[in-house]
């Protein structure tokens, strides 16, 4: 097990912010390994450091000390440009508030990562279309975010995360702005992605969302408090809901 190539490997990662002259340490040395294909929920109360951990895992931020190996490569000291490239190739993001570009069609939103990957126009449209079909939005390619429901917007965001075939999907409270039925739909989609071999890491403070994950890591005060594997609950969409969202 130990000589197998982990997808993510954190080695005593700390993060200290400086609020003016006062240093505030948020992560106190987090070490963890996530293997390819795992589905992991990171939980913790606000202030536990889970957002900070998420930012570091997503290569949006760098650790103050310690090492972070993503897909075998130490990314803890990369510069902004190189981190952007890592995000572009290896990571797909899903946010609580969707973060789609307004007044931009679903298709173009999904194409966005491919633009920065230098993919040509035609190939970009083809792959974006495939990704949108995969999340069940084949009929909504030209719709703008304002013309889509919350659940549909989050599906567009997931398609955007999927389009560059990343190894890791990072979801930050992906169901935080959704009603419970839509939340189950989205979780079902994540489980489906997990089954197809993509590593899904989601950050949440809702324990019922965490039950859909195979592994639950709980953070407290900047340290890993518990790390447990479990048999995940299957997210099954109630039949009535299917009729409504069809």
């Amino acid at each position: 097990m130990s000589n197998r190539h982990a997808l993510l490997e954190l080695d005593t990662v700390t993060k200290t912010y400086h609020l003016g002259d006062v240093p505030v340490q948020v992560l106190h040395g987090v070490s963890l390994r996530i293997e390819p294909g795992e589905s992991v929920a990171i939980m913790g109360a606000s202030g536990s450091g889970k957002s900070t951990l998420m930012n570091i895992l997503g290569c949006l931020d760098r650790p103050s000390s310690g090492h972070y190996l993503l897909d075998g490569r130490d990314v803890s000291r990369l510069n902004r440009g190189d981190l952007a490239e890592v995000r572009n190739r290896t990571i797909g993001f899903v946010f609580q508030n969707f973060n789609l570009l307004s007044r931009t069609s679903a298709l173009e939103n999904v194409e966005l990562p491919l633009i920065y990957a230098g993919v040509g126009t035609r190939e970009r449209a083809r792959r974006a279309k495939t990704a949108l079909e995969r999340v069940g939005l084949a009929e909504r390619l030209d719709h703008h975010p304002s013309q889509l429901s919350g659940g549909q917007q989050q599906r567009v965001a997931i398609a955007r995360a999927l389009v560059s075939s990343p190894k890791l999907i990072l979801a930050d409270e992906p169901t935080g702005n959704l009603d419970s039925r839509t939340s189950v739909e989205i979780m079902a989609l994540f489980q489906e992605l997990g089954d197809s071999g993509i590593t899904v890491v989601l950050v949440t403070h809702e324990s019922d969302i965490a039950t859909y994950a195979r592994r639950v890591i709980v953070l407290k005060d900047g340290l890993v408090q518990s790390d447990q594997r479990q048999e995940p609950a299957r997210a099954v969409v109630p039949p009535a809901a299917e009729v409504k969202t069809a």
Partner: protein
Amino acid sequence: MNPLVTFRLALRALLRNKMRSFLTMLGIIIGVSAVIAMVAIGEGAKAQVEKSFAAMGTSLLIVMSGSSSAGGARGGFGSQPTLTWDDLKAIQTEVTSVKSAAAVLRSSASLVSEDQNWTTTVQGTTPEYFEIRTWSIANGSGLTQSDVEGGTKVIVLGQTVASRLFGSGDAVGQAVRIKNTPFQVVGVLQAKGQSPTGQDYDDGAFVPVTTFQSKIQGGLQKFLNGTIFVSAVSAADTTRAQAAVTNLLRDRHRIPPGADDDFSIRNLAEVAGAQQEGTKTMTTLLASIAFVSLLVGGIGIMNIMLVSVTERTREIGVRMAVGAKPHHILAQFLVEALTLSLLGGLLGVAIGIGGGAWLARSFNWPMLVRPDIVSVAVVFSALVGVGFGLYPARKASLLDPIEALRYE
């Protein structure tokens, strides 16, 4: 990411806020159109001055006799004949930078046709004169060398004189009398218009210089009782020719070093130059005011780009999260600023040319669009866009993706 994609992205973003984009461009539009229109009108005025000087003859020098001085009253240039016919010959043959030279003797005289009369300046000269003044014959023929040698009684009329004496009829072949001497009209000159001071060139008549001396105004045989028109081999050689003629005449007149010339030479290129200088100053002044307004337009672009960066902080965060590098963001905003300014510049060119033409027509000003100024204005507006877009674009590219994503 290829430039075309970046450009399309910028165009999209600008079209999202059409009114705002237009108002932002307006500064550049006004600046560029002002530059184009002002310079076009300035250049038009310059061209008009040039044209009126060209009508006098290019690379022209006028040599006049010295002044007489009797009992303290000084007579002005030309009042005392100092130039001789031999001087003329010397100028024609000895100065290499001189193309040709001609004597002009003048007298006011009344020309009488069968039923009309008209008083004008009759000038005795040689065929070279018309060459120097670049003045050609409209009808009939000009004075010839044999006319000068033989002292024939032929006359060439200016357009004004011809129409005063013969109306719309053909003047060539008709007879006019000057002081009871009949002259045959052999030709009518082309219209030449006015001098820069408003004198009508076409109100004059020309006879062979020999005939002038024998029939109109007898003079001293040795002295040339008039002026000498000299043309240099080229406009650039005018100053050199002036110096050479001055030296030659001082030498011939045995004027010791330090003493004043007993003749004077008018260099029309100098007069024209002074006139040109005036219009050039005006053009420069107008153009610099217009360029300042371009700068103001640039500040407008910077202002709006800063607002745009703030408004679109979230978008920037999203783009960075999905893999936009800082230079992608920089390029995106820079190209937006560049598109605004360049589009403004091009619209400004169109409006500047159109507006200039309208002004020119309604105020009857001459106008001359200079392609180099047009391209300078467009390039300058692009530079303004890049210059003033750089700061907002850099600000955008330095945003922290985490904070940008959280921005409300």
